[in-house]
């Protein structure tokens, strides 16, 4: 089906669609097999890269590989220290894994050719993975908030801010919307960027059919434009991975902050 079909088929004569996956039914559940194997491959890459670094790790002069890891860990560590403080030490592995894993997943988009079926699609361009990570993060954030404030404090927190307590229905409504928006925006921001990246590849591939008279103008343009777009898309992938990790830290910061701060 594809929502783009009607919009794009007329000027470009191309059949661009979204949401196409290699699917299988397992225990009555629909599984996007391409997303699953791409996720597993990304996970294996991240784990391998980590274990290789672990095998060579030294407290002496680090190699380039270890240095890269150290830079990532130090950046996350610093971000956590600056916003949450020493209490946030448990957030570091989560934020670091999110960043590296999402970045690796996003890089798969560079392999894309803009077809209906990608051998190795970026798994983050399927709503399932971003949503899974976002909900996982948000569940942990709420758990941290309950641990920090106690059940009573956790509930009270939704009633007495941002307005005085007598306006608690308004407060409750605003806070619930806020809490629902957090995982949704976290997931959709990543998903939307990666989906759009894939769509751009499809559009650039569809450019091939553009001719002015006998001149294959689209075919000449599509290669350089695709190269430029993929370089740009790699930057988007890095930025989105960074934003996901950063927002995770900030959500934990809000949850772990003392009550007086809000």
């Amino acid at each position, binding site marked *: *089906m*594809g929502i783009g079909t009607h919009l794009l088929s007329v000027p470009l004569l191309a059949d661009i*669609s*979204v*949401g*196409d*996956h*290699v*699917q*299988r039914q*397992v*225990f009555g*559940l*629909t*599984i*996007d*097999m391409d*997303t*699953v194997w791409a*996720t*597993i491959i990304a*996970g294996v890459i*991240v*784990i391998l890269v*980590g*274990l290789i*670094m*672990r095998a060579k*790790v*030294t*407290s*002496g002069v*680090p190699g380039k590989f*270890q240095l890269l*890891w*150290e830079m990532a*860990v*130090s950046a996350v560590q610093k971000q956590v220290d600056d916003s949450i403080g020493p209490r946030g030490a448990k957030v*570091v*592995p*989560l934020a*670091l*894994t999110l960043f*590296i*894993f999402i970045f690796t997943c996003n890089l798969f988009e560079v392999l894309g050719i803009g077809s*209906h*079926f990608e051998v190795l699609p970026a*798994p983050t361009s*399927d*709503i*399932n*993975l971003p*949503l*899974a*990570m976002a*909900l*996982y993060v948000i569940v942990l954030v709420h758990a941290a908030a309950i641990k920090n404030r106690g059940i009573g404090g956790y509930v009270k927190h939704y009633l007495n801010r941002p307005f005085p307590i007598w306006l608690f229905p308004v407060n409750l409504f605003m806070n619930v919307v806020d809490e629902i928006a957090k995982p949704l925006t976290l997931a959709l921001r990543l998903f939307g960027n990666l*989906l759009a990246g894939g769509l751009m590849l499809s559009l650039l591939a569809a450019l091939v059919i553009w001719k002015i008279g006998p001149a294959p103008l689209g075919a000449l343009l599509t290669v350089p434009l695709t190269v430029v777009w993929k370089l740009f898309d790699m930057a988007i992938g890095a930025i989105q991975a960074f934003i996901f990790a950063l927002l995770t830290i900030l959500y934990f910061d809000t949850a772990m902050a003392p009550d007086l701060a809000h």
Partner: protein
Amino acid sequence: MLIAASNFLVPNGTFIVVLIAFIVVLGVIAKYVLPPLNKALTERQDQIRGELEAADKAKADAQEADAERRAVLDHARVQAREIVAQASTSADQIKVKAEADGQAIHDRIVQAADAEVVIARQAAVEQVTARVGEIVLAAAERVIGREIRSADHQDLIDEAIAAVRAETSGAGAGAAGGRR
């Protein structure tokens, strides 16, 4: 296996599979990758801190040694100055003492010489006066042709001797004073 289109905004069973995959990755990173890396980072920080502290200590030691060297040098300089000053003072003292001693010896020698002169003169005068008395008597005997008993004219002789003595002692005193 089929390629099927579905609503791209609605999650499906994939959610559970990829969630498990992500948690596995998170677990491996958190349990097996981060701890050794953090350990290495901490060790390196400690190493660097230790080296910096050692460098600081070495610097402090060097400064201390330098200050000590300076103090010793200053002390030595002050001592040298004192020794030179002392030497110059004692040289002055020795000079003054030597001058005083020399003067005293000189004075003593001169006094002794003066005394000897006076004694010699006295003796000479005694001899001369004795001799003068005899000569005068002998001359007088020859002149008057007879013996003159000295006892008879003792008054005259004594008178003459006294006159001679008065004359010579007056001249001797004058000569002693002029020599000084």
